[in-house]
């Protein structure tokens, strides 16, 4: 079985993240770029299947700037067989529609039995990319899976919703997205780190994918304005001297908060 895992490089959520005020696009220089944690969980789903089913091929697919290489190498050190990096200057600031078109083209080129992705990135938080790609490829998709079971010709799982949960399944080929309830990714071992250097990391441009650099798929999202929220400032700070609970009740009542 060939499993393609989608990965995204995002700014670290433990640092201050910034948007470029002129374009509304992510300021990549402002914070450390890391593999999105949810994408790592997607990778772990694939790795666990490979643990139990030798002969499984895992390909890591990502689109992003040159800094992506280190993140892809990390994936290779964890047991991924090959990585594909879509790198093209014209993709800077690509909207959801364009990103989905490009990723779908890359999947068609690489081939797949199953595509696994995180349910939503920690930066954009759109949560729509797997379903958009599925529509491009005419595939069924199972999104927001809290648990996943993969068999030779099917994938199934429990999908968390706002109102409860659903048990869902579909035949392969298919695309699934997983939530934070799936297990964390493993740590790389020494052997994995050494072998990562010998594994193929292919860089593809839009030309390589046969996607025109100015192709418009229809509606485009356009940013009209970006404004930064004024920094919040500290208010009253008191040290409890035995009466802070009563004083707080007073504060809440005075502000009509209770």
């Amino acid at each position, binding site marked *: 079985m060939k499993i393609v895992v989608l990965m995204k490089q995002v700014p670290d*959520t*433990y640092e201050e*993240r910034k*948007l470029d005020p002129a374009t*509304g696009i992510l300021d990549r220089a402002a914070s450390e770029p890391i593999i999105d*944690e*949810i994408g790592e969980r997607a990778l772990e789903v694939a790795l666990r299947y490979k643990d139990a089913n030798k002969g499984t091929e895992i390909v890591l697919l990502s689109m992003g700037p040159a800094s992506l290489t280190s993140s892809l190498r990390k994936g290779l050190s964890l047991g991924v067989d090959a990585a594909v990096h879509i790198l093209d200057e014209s993709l800077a600031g690509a*909207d959801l*529609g364009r990103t989905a078109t490009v990723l779908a083209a890359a999947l068609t080129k690489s081939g797949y039995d199953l595509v696994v992705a995180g349910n939503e990135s*920690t*930066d954009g*938080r*759109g*949560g*729509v990319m*797997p*379903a*958009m790609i599925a*529509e491009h490829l005419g595939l069924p*998709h*199972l999104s927001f899976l809290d648990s996943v079971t993969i068999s030779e010709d099917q994938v199934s799982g429990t999908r*968390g*919703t*706002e*109102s*409860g949960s*659903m*048990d*869902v*399944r*579909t035949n392969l080929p298919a695309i699934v997205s997983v939530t*934070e*309830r799936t297990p964390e990714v493993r740590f790389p071992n020494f052997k994995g780190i050494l072998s990562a250097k010998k594994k193929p990391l292919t860089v593809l441009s839009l030309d390589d994918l046969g996607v025109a650099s100015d192709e418009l798929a*229809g*509606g*485009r*999202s*356009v*940013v*009209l*304005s970006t*404004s930064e*929220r004024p920094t*919040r400032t*500290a*208010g*009253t*700070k*008191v*040290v*409890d001297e035995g*009466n*802070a*609970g*009563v004083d*707080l*009740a007073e*504060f809440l009542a005075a502000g009509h*908060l*209770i």
Partner: protein
Amino acid sequence: MPNILALIELSSTGEIRGTAPSLIAAAARLGTPVAVAAVAPGGGAGLLDALGALGAEHVFLAESDQVDKVLVSPQLEALVAANAALEPAGILVMNSVEGRDVGARLAVRIHGGLSIDAVDLRSDAGKIIATHSIFGGAYTVESTVEDGPVIVTLRPGVIQDRAEATTATLTTVQVTADSGATIDGITDAVGTSSRPELREAKIVVSGGRGLGSKEKFELVERLADALGAAVGASRAAVDAGYVPQTSQVGQTGTTVAPQLYIALGISGAIQHRAGMQTAKTIVAINKDADAPIFDIADYGIVGDVFTVVPQLIEALQARAAS
């Protein structure tokens, strides 16, 4: 006025989900609100009056025997059919699991542009302008869609106005999808909690690692109940196993913007602040006087949550009783 479609989510027993009023109100701001729903054949009885009462001028019911059996496809085909029949200026879905799945596929199908997680919507010279709150409210971005249909996913709980009740007209069509994933079972969450939903609560009480254990986290729940609040938690508290992940407030959890946010034993890492910093009033109680949460708190108490909070609960109860 142009038609604006609003995808109405239904429970497995056919009830209109609580998000429908805000979605219809948002559609009414932009044009003529049309409620679109996928129902089992003959299963739409009562929806016409109910959706009219919520302000829908028109109700478009797509009957399909795949409802609740096939994932996403019935709702998707309902919107595709309504889009073809009514040529709307915009299509609104909730930024929910179902809404995002349907909206995502629809955008690709009809070559539309997606506007994700809108917190406000307005119409300007015929264009639909959406406001987005990025990085937990650190930035506000306005966007629109050019050269194609607009599909907006609306954040739950942000549109407070309601459309005026009316008598809706009805269109019923039959739809069918070629394929789709199979739904084997639906489990509706058992309503064990009388607490408000975290995302929409007016008051949120959150606990962090400072609570020390799962047993002691109960203090957070006691204060929440005294205030009629929802219970939240920092990622540290979730990772430590004090509470389930569904309670997590922060960049990788739920983003909340309540009137009052009370942080108990939470240090206030950026990760957490990104999920709550747009709260109207922030109160923090922490033993560590240097905890970063105090930098954004309107009222900070340096003290032990296990002495301050019980005293607060007692004071609240005394007020309620008097």
